[in-house]
Structures are given as structure tokens and as C-alpha cells.
């Protein structure tokens, strides 16, 4: 365990008091407040930094970029407090609006975070910023984030951030990069499309499926079934083409999910056919037969 700098408790108290009063003293300009806040976060002592990062929300979007810049050269201990300061600003700005409440503007905070995604910033900083953007970014921020899907140093975190953004626009980004990104990035984009549970992604995945082979085809079928989309036109052909290397249970689980999707679309007869064939198939695990019978049972109410 490395030792941490132990400051004089009187100094800690004094620093906390100065930070607290600086927010209320009429003589202190906003710029001076921000400068004092940032200087405190530069301190080698974690205890001296504590009162600054735990009250960071009051400084709002103005300090986002300076905090990110400081993160570039900060040691791990300081960098985590800088991130915690940014987190507090993000959570404060993203909370539901209350009438008459003074709060940092959400979109402005997200926009400031995006300013830290430029090429001169290190992957270390960009990954931390992307983590935060996952909780506050809106579709307006997608143009800043989406190019990073093709940058292998940060594409994983970019994928996670976009996945958290609700709405069709974020799904469209994944659809676009499903073809445009390097091959090693494709599995995570397929997974993201499945996890979003946005059935409108179906046609784009089906198109990709047409050219996919082997594991990529299996991943695409899995993603499409999880997205809630209707089954592809050639579902049986696609499943058969996976060969005997892929177990009947894996194929059956994909068919089960597509049957559920058909039910959601009101296509009960097609769903019934899939459930019935799985329920009667004695060559697959009994758990699949149980699931298919449960599907048939639920159809009785339709």
C-alpha cells in the first residue's frame, strides 16, 4: 500500500471553509471560484481535494473541459477524484427538471464532455469521458461519439456509451457501423444491436446476415432474435448453414426468441408452428421443450 500525504487537519478545515465561502462571497468572481476549485483538485493530498470534488456540481459545465485536461497528466489517485468531480456534475445536470430550480443545463454538460473526444486527447481521457456520456449524452451528441466506434483504442467504450442513449438515432449509428467498422469491432456492434431490443434494427441485421458466415452469422442471428425483430425470410436455411458444430439447443433458443417476437407482432400461427415443432422435438434438451410448451400455453390467451 503506498502512503498518502497526511495534511494538517487545520489546513483541511481551512480549505473546506474557503471553498464553501467562495461560493457566497460577493467579491469573488465566477472565474476566481473556478480557479480556486481547480487549484484545490491539484493538491497532492486526497483529504484537501475531498471538499472540492464532493461539491463539484455547483461549478457546472464550465469546469468540464479543464477537469478533462487535468486528467491527462494526473496520477491515478488525482485522476479518480477528477472523474468523481465530473460525475457529480453529470448526475446533477441529468436529474429531472424541477420548476424554478437552478441547475446546470444538461445538454451543455454533454456538449462540453464531447469537446474532450478530439484526436489530441489520450484514449485514457476519452474512455473516462465516454463512460460519463453514457449517462447524459443525447442524440445530438452522436456525431461526436460515433466516429470512435471505428477507433479500436476506444471503440468498446464508445459502443457502451451509444448503447445507453435511447432512441432510433442511436440504433441507426450501430446499423451504419455494422458494415463500416473493422471486423474485430463487428461482434460488439451486433451484440449492442441485440441488447438495445429495438426491433427496427431487423432489416439492417438481415442484410448483414446475407453475407455473414460461421460465427459472425451465428452472432447476427442471435442479435436479430434478441432485438425483437421478425425472423429473417430464410431462417431455416441460415440455421442449417451453421452446420452441426452449433448445437441444436443454441439453434432452438434462437427459434424460441423469434417465436416470441412473432407473438409480439400478432403473428400467432407462425409462432405456434415454431413452438409446436420444438415442443415435439425429443432430440433436444428438455428445457427447450418446456420453454416451447410454455410458449404454446401463453398462446391460448391470444
Amino acid at each position, binding site marked *: *500500500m503506498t502512503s498518502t500525504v497526511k495534511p494538517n487537519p487545520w489546513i483541511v478545515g481551512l480549505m473546506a471553509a474557503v471553498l464553501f465561502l467562495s461560493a457566497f462571497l460577493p467579491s469573488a468572481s465566477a472565474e476566481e471560484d473556478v480557479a480556486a476549485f481547480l487549484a484545490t483538485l491539484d493538491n497532492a493530498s486526497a483529504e484537501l481535494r475531498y471538499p472540492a470534488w464532493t461539491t463539484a456540481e455547483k461549478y457546472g459545465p464550465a469546469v468540464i473541459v479543464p477537469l478533462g485536461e487535468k486528467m491527462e497528466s494526473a496520477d*491515478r489517485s488525482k485522476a479518480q477524484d477528477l472523474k*468523481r468531480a465530473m460525475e457529480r456534475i453529470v448526475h446533477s445536470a441529468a436529474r429531472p427538471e424541477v420548476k424554478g430550480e437552478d441547475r446546470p443545463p444538461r445538454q451543455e454538460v454533454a456538449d462540453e464532455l464531447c469537446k474532450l473526444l478530439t484526436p489530441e486527447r489520450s484514449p485514457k481521457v476519452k474512455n473516462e469521458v465516454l463512460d460519463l456520456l453514457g*449517462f447524459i449524452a443525447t442524440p445530438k451528441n452522436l456525431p461526436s461519439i460515433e466516429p470512435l466506434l471505428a477507433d479500436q483504442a476506444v471503440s468498446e467504450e464508445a459502443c457502451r456509451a451509444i448503447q*445507453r442513449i435511447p432512441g432510433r438515432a442511436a440504433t441507426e449509428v450501430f446499423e451504419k457501423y455494422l458494415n463500416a467498422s473493422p471486423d474485430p469491432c463487428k461482434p460488439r456492434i451486433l451484440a449492442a444491436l*441485440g441488447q438495445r431490443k429495438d426491433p427496427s434494427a431487423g432489416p439492417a441485421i438481415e442484410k448483414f446476415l446475407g453475407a455473414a458466415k460461421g460465427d459472425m452469422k451465428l452472432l447476427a442471428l442471435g442479435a436479430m432474435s434478441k432485438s425483437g425483430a421478425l425472423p429473417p425470410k430464410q431462417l431455416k436455411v441460415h440455421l442449417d448453414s451453421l452446420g452441426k458444430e452449433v448445437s441444436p439447443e443454441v439453434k432452438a433458443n434462437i427459434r424460441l426468441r423469434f417465436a416470441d417476437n412473432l407473438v409480439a407482432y400478432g403473428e400467432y400461427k407462425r409462432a405456434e408452428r415454431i413452438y409446436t415443432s420444438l415442443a415435439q422435438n425429443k432430440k433436444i434438451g428438455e*428445457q427447450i421443450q418446456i420453454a416451447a410448451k410454455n410458449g404454446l400455453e401463453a398462446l391460448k390467451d391470444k
Partner: protein
Amino acid sequence: MDSIRFQKPVTRRSFMSKTAQVGAALALPTIIPSHVLAKPGRPGANDRIRIANIGVGGMGRGHISEDTIAVCDVDKNHLAQAVERAKEKTGGTVVDTYGDYRRVLERKDVDAVVIATPDHWHGIIMVHACQAGKDVYVEKPACHTLEEGKAMIDATNRYGRVVQVGSQGRSTPDAHAACTYVRNGALGEVKKVTCWHVPNKEGGFEPDCDPPAELDWDFWLGPMRWIPYNPERCHFNFRWFLDYGAGYIRDRGAHVFSVVLWCMNQDRDTPVTVTAKGTPPKSGGIFDVPTELEIVYKFKDPEWEVVWAQPGDRGGEWDFGMIFHGANDKLVVRGGDGGCKTEEKALNYTPPAGGVEVFKSPGHKQNWYDCIRSREKPLMDIVAGVRVSQMCIIGNLAYILNRPLEWDPAKQQFVNDEEANRYIKSPGRGQYHL
């Protein structure tokens, strides 16, 4: 699970099913109760239930039993220790070892799995195990995200699995006595339960470094965002990070809340408003759970509340426990995990004729074994386990976001809080997702 490739050997269950039925027909002249016979998915009363233990670090090693046939862990040191433990339990058998749980689930001769990984792996492995037809004992807290919880309930029901969650407090005699006492109205109407626990740990700062050769760090992280290895983050210490174990409220709160919900007969998902306040750690160490924490849960339909407080008002010398505040009296239950101690008045209580009879567990693991054979729901089934986890997750989230949260069970969403709703599910990472 899409990438899992199953073999197609004759399964032990189908083999046992056939031999048990043929054998019974030849040898036994009398009618045999149906629960004694093996059926597909139902081992007979005398069948050995073959278990694979997934996650065999500290807690997981304790789950290894004479029924263990395989162990799995991302740390080779854990595996080596687990093999020794299994030898002791099985009289010298060398069990199979795996680094990837998916290979374990491919084995047709594994009937059931015990999952004792760090929390962020519970949901994914459990759902995949159900898809592979295994019954499951999953350590508490059952899930790491609210979406995972729903998926775990769905998978259990869909595939007809028997799932027990490891909040074993419900299987202790004292929790049974407390439950009987409270449910029969001995305290009068109970509208409030207060829970106490000692504060969370505050760590030091250790620099990041390369993971040791025996550890697959990427697999350990699994669905979580990738970050560099740090010895203070891994294994037991995952408890002190909001991203992973998230403090005592999940570690021990999952025991305490389990007993609270059982006594209050409130395992189902109901609307709840949650407020939280806590003290972030001051030391500058890498742990980020709050040292002190107070969370208030106000339930509707019916209206009652739970207060979780660290440190809170202790109801005795124990580090944690709960107090049921009734209209006429109160009852203290200390602990709530495998160690649970309540008051004499509850231990000596006999329900009135026609009163509420509470199921008495033969032991948590035995209850699971019994239910695997009978296909009934265990005492701490997945619905109860998810409900408990939900309390832990929403409580911590109210602290993280620093605002009250209102949960709508019908919509499975937070009311009017778009950011909170982004926490409902994890985006997963790479190949690691539901």
C-alpha cells in the same frame, strides 16, 4: 450463449430415467410414488445430483461438496485450491477444472450449477445455465442490474428450472421463528423495519499493475467496462466498489432484506420510493462505496417502510441486523445470514390454531436439492432473490444520483428520471452480455 456449442452425448438424466423405470418395473412389486422415479429433468430421490461449482474463490470454495464433479474459475490459484477441497469432500476424486463457464454448461452430465462469482457475473451465467437446462444455486445478491433480475426470473420460468438464491438466513431456525411471530401478528401491524450495519470499508491507494499470470483479468471483468488490473479491486475487495459489489448493503443487506421481506410476506415487486444520503470515502483510496449510508424505502400497496442505516441504531452487539416495529411491540433479529439470532419471545412462540404456518427449511442447500427432485419452488426462489437485489440496486442508485427515485413495477422503469432509467441495464462488453 449463442457461441456455445453443445455436444450430443446420451445424458445422465435420460439414461437414469430409462434405467430407473425399467429397473423399477422389474424389481419392485408395489406401486412406487412418482417422486421417487427419475424423469427427464427430475432426478430420482436416490440419484446423485451432479454439480459444477462456478466461481470457487473464498465463498465459492465453501460450496464444494461430495456432489461436485467440476469446478470453474478465472483464477488458476482458486482452481488448484478447489481441486484440493473437492478431494477432501469426495474421498479423493480429482474433479475437472475449467476457466470458462460456457464449457461447463456444455456438459450433459452436469445437473446443476452453484454460481459464486463476483456479483456482476451472476445474471449472465445464471441465464445461460437455465438455457442449458441446469438447475441453479446462485449466490446473493442475485442480480447486478434491474434488467438482469427480470431476465433471471424469465429464464427460470421459461425453461422450468429450480433456482435457489443464497440468502440462507431464511433457512435458519431463528429467522423461521421471527417470520412466524411477525406474520401471526404478535407485534401488531408492522409498518416499519429498521436495519443496521457497521460502516463500509475505506481503502488505501494501490497503483494499477499487470494482472498476475494465474488470473484472466478480462474474463474477471466480463460485462463491466474494461479498466486496468488493481489488486485492491479484484477478488474479495470487489465489494468496496459501486460498480461491482457496492458495499455492505449488497453483501449483507441481501441477507437482511431477505429476512425482512420474508417476515413481511412482501417478496413481490411493488412501487417504492427511495431516498438516500451517504458519506463518500475521504481517504483518496480506490474504494468508492460510501462509508456511512442511510436509505429509506417507502413501499406502496401496502404502505410500509424499511430504513437501512450504516451505522444506524444497533439492536445489540452484532454488526448487523433488523428491528421490526409493530403497533404493540418490536422484535430484534440479529444477523440474518447463516448466523441469525432473534429474541426468546419469538423462539418460544406457538402460532394459534388456524394461524399462519411458515415453511420450515431443512437447510438452504437441502431445500434446493429437495426442490430439484420435486420441481417445486425453493424457499429463496428467484423472484424473492431479485426483489432483494432490487432494493440494494435502487438504494445505491439513489445515493449515486443524489436524489430520490420512484420505481414503477408495472413499467419496470423509474418515474420521470431518464438518467436513472439508463442504469436499468448494463450495456455489457464484447462477448459478455445477457
